């Protein structure tokens, strides 16, 4: 079992230890069994990540598309992120918002938030994701809660990606109209986790790992999970992520999980990911998730290039962001700071992205929720 310098270990029900060998060296027969069995289990998922499965990537893609179509239809749910603030108390080595970066910090004030919401609503979006950095006095729980309450007046679905909160705080977000909270563990491996998160509240691996359970316990409907691919061994992270999702599904039967696939690319902000994930392997990871979890929303952001996103839409991926700005604000006027949290690789506007989806026989869906379900 992996143990970091502070003796923090990964919990048993997330630890992928026993499946690591299979994910690295499954045989062609293991892969065939995984593809043919009616109920894909943990061993099958591991086999689908293996080099042997990579050899039959086209077959994985065909399965993934069939399963996506059966459950989600020929549709892609669309959402848009809004960064409320780039103040941060975290020291994440890989992040453009880390507190030792010299850039000027901003946060949106209530009147600016309102103008951003109006501009985003005018673009047609009905699902918005509100983001902040780690907890700071400038962007604390009441600030996020108030932004959620205002967003709930403008959008059918409001989700949040911020710092880990208490169950009580999550209840407050639910009451304000939040339907989902996304919180990436970044890496599930406690050893690099400690090295990469140099200071701040995010150093607490266990607290962060337990946050999605608190989200669902509070009555928020969806917990979004993810690992930042590239910062640690992707096999370890992807297997852990899968087990984390399984565990939450078993525990919170009236809630849902969704999974995102953020990938760090080498050109960003000088940080070179030690475990780069290729396009082919990222596709394989997504196909494996879709085959193993046919009914879980799988999301891909504008971190990825247009060609990759177009290829993955409907072939595993069921949800996508578009027209994203990763700077604070920036939708209502182009006065936002130039430095975003990450580089937007797919910078198409809403109309051209929708046209690309439609050309693939996919319907972009802006509204797939209703205020009545709050």
């Amino acid at each position, binding site marked *: 079992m992996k143990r970091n310098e502070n003796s923090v270990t990964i919990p048993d029900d997330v630890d992928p230890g026993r499946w690591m060998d299979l994910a690295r060296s499954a045989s062609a027969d293991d892969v065939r069994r995984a593809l043919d069995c009616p109920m894909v289990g943990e061993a099958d998922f591991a086999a689908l990540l293996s080099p042997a499965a990579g050899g039959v990537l086209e077959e994985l893609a065909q399965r993934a598309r069939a399963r996506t*179509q*059966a*459950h*989600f*239809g*020929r*549709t892609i749910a669309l959402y848009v992120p809004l960064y409320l603030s780039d103040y941060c108390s975290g020291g994440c080595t890989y992040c453009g918002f880390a507190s030792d970066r010299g850039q000027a910090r901003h946060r949106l004030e209530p009147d600016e938030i309102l103008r951003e919401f109006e501009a985003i*609503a005018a673009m*047609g979006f*009905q699902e918005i994701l509100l983001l902040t950095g780690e907890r700071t006095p400038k962007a604390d729980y009441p600030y996020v809660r108030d932004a959620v309450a205002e967003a709930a007046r403008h959008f*059918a679905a409001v989700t949040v990606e911020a710092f880990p909160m208490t169950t009580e705080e999550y209840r407050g977000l639910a009451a304000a109209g939040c339907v989902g909270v996304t919180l990436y563990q970044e890496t599930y491996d406690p050893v690099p986790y400690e090295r990469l998160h140099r200071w701040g509240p995010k150093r607490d691996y266990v607290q962060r790992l337990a946050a999605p359970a608190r989200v669902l316990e509070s009555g928020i*409907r*969806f917990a979004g999970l993810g690992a930042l691919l590239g910062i640690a061994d992707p096999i370890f992270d992807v297997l852990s992520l899968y087990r984390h999702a399984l565990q939450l*599904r078993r525990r919170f*039967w*009236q*809630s*849902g999980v969704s999974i995102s696939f953020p990938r760090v690319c080498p050109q960003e902000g000088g940080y070179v990911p030690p475990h780069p994930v290729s396009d082919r392997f990222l596709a394989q990871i997504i196909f494996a998730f879709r085959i193993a*979890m046919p*009914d*879980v929303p799988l999301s891909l952001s504008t971190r990825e290039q247009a060609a990759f996103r177009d290829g993955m839409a409907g072939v595993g991926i069921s949800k996508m962001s578009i027209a994203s700005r990763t700077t604070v604000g920036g939708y209502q006027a182009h006065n936002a700071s130039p430095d975003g949290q990450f580089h937007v690789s797919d910078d198409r506007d809403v109309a051209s992205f929708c046209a690309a989806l*439609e050309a693939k*026989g*996919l*319907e*972009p*869906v*802006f*509204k*797939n*929720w*209703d205020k*009545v*379900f709050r």
Partner: protein
Amino acid sequence: MNPVEKLVLGGVEFDSRLLVGTGKFASTDVMVKAIAASGAQLVTVALRRVNPERPSDDLLGPLTKLNITLVPNTSGARNAAEAIRAARLGRELSGSRFVKVEIHPNPHHLMPDAIETYEASKVLAREGFIVLPYMPADPVLAKRLEEVGCAAVMPLGSAIGTGHGMTTAEMIRLIIADSGVPVIVDAGLRAPSEAAAAMEMGCGAVLVNSAIAAAGDPVGMANAFAEAVKAGLAARRAGLMSRSTHAVATSPLTTFLA
């Protein structure tokens, strides 16, 4: 030949025995053409896909232009209270008294919650809705829902979107045997032959969405389902021959009897 009796739901008559859903289509245009090809007169629409602010994203607008009866569904609700609120809003937006009560607390497998479905159906039937409840294939629950005033019962063939067909056939037979309201198989059908089998078995109608929307040619598949439903009903009316499970014995066992 007697005229084919109509499907009657809440006192309203329908010629078509095929209901269709409107989710999962590649475009509104394909959806509209598929509905036309299906000949469906009852069409379900999810409240969460109603978006009048963006007509290109709105399912309700194009449906109101068709000569059909809208059946708003409460998909997204995880309990009776939410479903009741959604049903009332659906009636306001669509002007239809029909509602498909759909309560699935688990957003992954989307299996209906029997307890909450019963509670919501009871309230909505009392409020004058024509209630069509999506339900587990449970013969006891079916009678309970009939007793509280549902206009039909809609047991699932298998889980939504799976295309596993009539995995609940034995339970659906028991439901049909005792039901005083039409039995509409909803969810899980993949092939028109399965729809025909449901009609032969005695179902009042079938509801299909994924099997049409995810077909290679949704319009062609909608037409195929329409034909299959008619064929299944015609076969039932014509009377299927009895099925023999074993050969007739050559040495009779009862010759010793007078």
